[in-house]
C-alpha cells in the first residue's frame, strides 16, 4: 500500500510507513548533507529512522547552496 506525500513541493507516492531515513536515501543517495523538515517542523538527523511518513505529509529536503 502506498501513501501520497508532498516532497519539496511535488506530490509523490511512497510506501506506507516509509521512514524519513528511507526517504532521504531514496531521494538523495549520494548526498551526504541533507536536512529535513516535516510539516514545517525541523526533524534532527538522529530521529530520521524513527519518523514514519503518513498520508498528506509535507517533506522538505534541503542541501547546501551558495548564499549571500
Amino acid at each position, binding site marked *: 500500500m502506498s501513501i501520497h506525500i508532498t516532497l*519539496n*513541493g511535488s506530490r509523490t507516492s511512497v510506501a506506507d510507513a516509509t521512514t524519513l531515513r528511507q526517504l532521504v536515501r531514496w*531521494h*538523495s543517495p*549520494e*548526498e*551526504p*548533507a*541533507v*536536512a*529535513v*523538515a516535516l510539516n*514545517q*517542523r*525541523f526533524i*534532527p*538527523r538522529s530521529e530520521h529512522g524513527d519518523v514514519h511518513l503518513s498520508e498528506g505529509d509535507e517533506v*522538505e*529536503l*534541503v*542541501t*547546501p*547552496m*551558495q*548564499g*549571500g
Partner: protein
Amino acid sequence: MFELARRTFHSRLLVGSAQYPSLEVMRDAIAASGTEVVTVSLRRQTAGGGSGNAFWRALNQDRLAVLPNTAGCHSAEEAIVTAQMARELFDTHWIKLEVIGDDSTLQPDPFGLLEAARELLGQGFEVFPYCTDDLVLCDRLLGAGCRILMPWGAPIGSGLGIDNAARLAELRRRYPDITLIVDAGIGAPSHAARAMELGCDAVLLNSAIARAGDPVAMASAFKSAVEAGRRGFEAGLMPTSREARPSTPDIGKPFWHA
C-alpha cells in the same frame, strides 16, 4: 585582530558565496579577499543531487568559517525552521537571520526578525540579524540577547553604498561595544572604506565582488579598502567644518594683503 562571536579573525571582510561565474572564480575571489567568513544558504534538494554538493565540497576544502543565512524567508516561523536545518547541515550555531518584509526592497521585517531572534537565541544560536538602521529595532534586538547587529547600508544587491551614514554613526555611538557589521548595499570599495571609517567592525558583501568585471581583482580591492577604512577610523578622522581653514601657516609671510 577582530573578535566575532567569541572567535578571533584577521579579516574584517565577510563575503558571500553566490553569483560567481564559476566555482573556481568563487574560490579565487574568496582567497583574494582575505576573508575568513563566508555566507552560505540552503535549497531544496533535487533528486540525484546537483551543484550544491560540489559547492559544499569546494568550500570545505578552504577551511573557512561559514555563516548560513535564512534568505528568502518571509516569516519568523520559516526563518526558525530554516535556521534549525542550517545548524545541522553546516554544523554551526551561527545564523545570519533574514526575515524579509518587502519584496521590492528586500527590507527586513522588524517584527518577524525580533520574534525569530528571540526564539533562536533561546535555542542557543548566535544570531547575526540582518536589520535596518532603526534605533529602536536595534535596541530591542540587543535587549533580546543579540551581540551583533547587521544593518543595511542600502537594499540588497543595489550597489548604492552607504545610504545612511548618519544613522550608522549613531548606532556606533550608542553601542560602542557591540559588533556592528554593514550588510547589504555596498557596491564599490569606497563604500566599504566609508563603512569602516564610520567605526563599523566589519562589512559583509557579495554582489559587489561576484558581479564585478573581474571578481578576483575586485576582491583584492575590497580587502585593501576595508583595511584602509579601519586604519583611518583607528587613527581618528579630523573634525569636519563648513568653513575653510588654511593648512599653510601665514606667519612670516614676506607680503600681505591690505
